[in-house]
C-alpha cells in the first residue's frame, strides 16, 4: 500500500546526511526519512486534536452527551492492544541487538497480531455505530469521532504493512546485531501510531 515505506525499510545501508539542522550530533533510531515523515504525521494529528478541542469548547454540552454513547471498554481494550504491540516491537529491537534473530521475528509477529486485534475491535465499534444510523453528518462530535479514529485506523493498517515487510525480512535473517537499521525504521513508525492513540483515547473517549 505504500511502496515508499517498504523501500525505506529495504535500504538499511543508507544513513543519509540529509542535514535539516546540523546542531544535533546523533540521529534517532531508524532512517532519517521516516522521522521527517513521523513529524509530518504528528503535525497532522496535532492539528486534528486541537481542532477537536477548540470545537468542543463551543459545543461542550453536545460533546459531553455524545461522548457517553461511545464504547469506552472497546477504546481501553484497543489502547492495551496498541501498547502491547509497541512493547512487542521494542522487545524485537532489543532482541535483534542481542542477535536473537528468531525471537526478534516472533516479537514482530506479536506486534502485527496486536495491530490486527485493534482493527477487529475497531470494526465492531464502527459497525455498532453504523447500525445505529450514525454517519459523518450526524453531528459535529461524531464527525470528529469518525474522522479522527478512521484517520488513525488507516495509520494502523499502514504501520502493519510496514511491520509485515520488516517481519518478512527478519524471518529471512536480513537483520543482525550489527545491522538492523530497517527494523528500527519500522519500529519508530509503529511507536508513532501508538503515541497518537495515547492522546486520542483520553481526549475523545474519557475526558469530560
Amino acid at each position, binding site marked *: 500500500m*505504500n*511502496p*515508499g*515505506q517498504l*523501500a*525505506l525499510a529495504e*535500504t538499511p545501508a*543508507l544513513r*543519509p*546526511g*540529509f*542535514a*535539516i539542522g546540523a546542531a544535533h550530533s546523533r540521529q534517532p533510531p531508524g*532512517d532519517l*526519512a521516516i522521522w*521527517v*515523515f513521523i513529524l*509530518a504525521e504528528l*503535525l*497532522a494529528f496535532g*492539528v*486534528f486534536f486541537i*481542532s477537536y478541542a477548540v470545537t468542543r469548547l463551543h459545543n461542550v454540552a453536545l460533546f459531553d452527551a455524545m461522548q457517553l454513547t461511545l464504547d469506552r471498554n472497546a477504546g481501553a481494550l484497543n489502547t492495551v492492544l496498541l501498547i502491547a504491540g509497541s512493547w512487542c516491537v521494542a522487545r524485537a529491537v532489543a532482541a535483534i541487538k542481542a542477535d536473537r534473530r528468531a525471537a526478534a521475528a516472533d516479537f514482530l509477529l506479536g506486534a502485527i497480531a496486536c495491530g490486527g486485534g485493534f482493527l477487529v475491535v475497531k470494526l465492531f465499534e464502527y459497525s455498532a455505530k453504523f447500525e445505529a444510523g450514525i454517519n*459523518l*453528518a450526524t453531528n459535529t462530535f461524531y*464527525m*470528529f469521532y469518525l*474522522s479522527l479514529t478512521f484517520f488513525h485506523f488507516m495509520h494502523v493498517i499502514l504501520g502493519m504493512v510496514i511491520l509485515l515487510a520488516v517481519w518478512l525480512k527478519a524471518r529471512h535473517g536480513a537483520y543482525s546485531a550489527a545491522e538492523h537499521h530497517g527494523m528500527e525504521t519500522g519500529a519508530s513508525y509503529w511507536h508513532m501510531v501508538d503515541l497518537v492513540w495515547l492522546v486520542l483515547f483520553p481526549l475523545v473517549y474519557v475526558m469530560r
Partner: protein
Amino acid sequence: MQYKSQAVARLYFIAAIGLFVAQILFGLIMGLQYVVGDFLFPAIPFNVARMVHTNALIVWLLMGFMGAAYYMVPEESETELFSPKLAVLMFWVFLAAAALTVLGYLLVPYAGLAKMTGNDLLPTMGREFLEQPLPTKVGIVVVALVFLFNITMTVLKGKKTAISLVLLLGLWGLALFFLFSFYNPDNVVKDKFYWWWVVHLWVEGVWELILGAILAFVLIKVTGVDREVIEKWLYVIVTLTLITGIIGTGHHYYWIGTPEYWQWWGSIFSALEPIPFFAMTLFAFNMVNRRRREHPNKAATLWALGTGVMSFLGAGVWGFLHTLAPVNFYTHGTQITAAHGHMAFYGAYVMVVLTMISYAMPILRGRAANPGKAQVAEMWAFWLMTVSIVFITLFLTAAGILQIWLQRVAATPMSFMDAQDQVALFYWMREWAGVVFLTGLVVYITSFFVKGETAKA
C-alpha cells in the same frame, strides 16, 4: 543523448514553448480587457481570451510532460522507446487537435462550436477549463492512451526505477481523472463535485507526482547524488502529496452544497498541503549542496532550485492563505484565487517543464550544455519571468484583498462591477508586470539561438 528515440522529445518541447507564447499573449490581451473592457471587442471577447489563456497553458504543460516522459523513460529504463514513430504521430495529432480547438474558439461563437461538434450527443462543454469540444476531449483521451501505452511498454521491457514508476503513476492518474470531464450530471452540486476530480486532482494530486519525478531525474543528472538517496526522498514527498492532496480536495467543497464535514476535512488536510512542497524545497537545495559533480548546465540547476522555491511559495503558501474554511468564506472566487493560480502554475508546473527543457534541450542538440552566453541569457529570462510572476501575484493579492473588503466585508458592500472599478489600479500594475514577463519569455526564446563554444554531450 544516450538513446536515439529520446529525440522525439524535441518536437514536444518546441511545440510547448510555442503554445507558451500563445498563452502569454492571450494573457496580456485579457489582462488589458480587465481595465479596457472593449479592447479587441468583438473580435476576441474576454471569455474567449480567457479560454485560450487557460487551455493553452494546460495543453503546453501536457506537451511538456509528454516530452519529458519521452526523454526520461528511455534513459531510466536503459532501452529505446517502444515506438518512436507512434510518439511522432501522436505529436502531430495532438498539435493539430490543439490548433483546431483554438481556431474553433477564436473563429466560431462558442454556442455554434458546441452545435458543430456534437455537444448535444454528450454534453460536456461550457465548464471552466473543460471547455474543449467533444472531439478534442476524445482526442486528448486517445493521444493520452497511446502515449501511455508507448511509455508503459518501454518501462516494461526495460529497467524499472522508482522515478519511472512514480512518473507512470502520475501519468496514468492524469489520464484516469480526465475521464471525469465526460461526466456532466444535471445536478449542479454533483457536476461541481466531479469537476474538481479533474481540476484539483490533476494539479494537487497526480501532476505533483510527475513534478516530483521530473525534478528527481534532473537532480540526479546535475548533482550526481546517489539515486537511492534521491528516490527515498521522492517517496516521502509523493506519500505526503497524495495524502494531503487527495483529501485536500475538500477545500473546494465548502460552499457548493456538499455536507458540512468537508469544511473540516478540507481545512485540516489542505492546511498540511504546504508540507510536501516544503519538503521538495529542502530536497532540491540539499541535493544541490551535496553535489558530487559540477554540471556545466548551470541554467538547469537554477530552474530546478527555482521550482523548489516557487512551488512552495505559489502552491504552498499562497494556497494556504485562503484554504481554511473561515477564511475561504470571504475569499473564494476572488482575485486571491487568481493570485494563487498564477504563482502556483508558474512555480510548480511551468518551472518544472522549463527545468526539463533546460536540461534536455542542449543534449538533444548534441551538447552537454549551452554556451556560456546562452546560459546567461536563459538565466536573465529566469529572473525576468520569476520576478514578474511574483509581482503579478502580489498585485492580484492586493486587488483581491481590496475586492473582498469592498464587496464582502464593508458595512455597505459594493456590487461586483463597482468593486472591480476600485481595484483597476492593481490590474494596470499586473498588466505591466505581464509585459515584463513577456520580455522574459522573448529573452528565453532568444537564448536558444545564442551561439558559442560548447562541449560535446
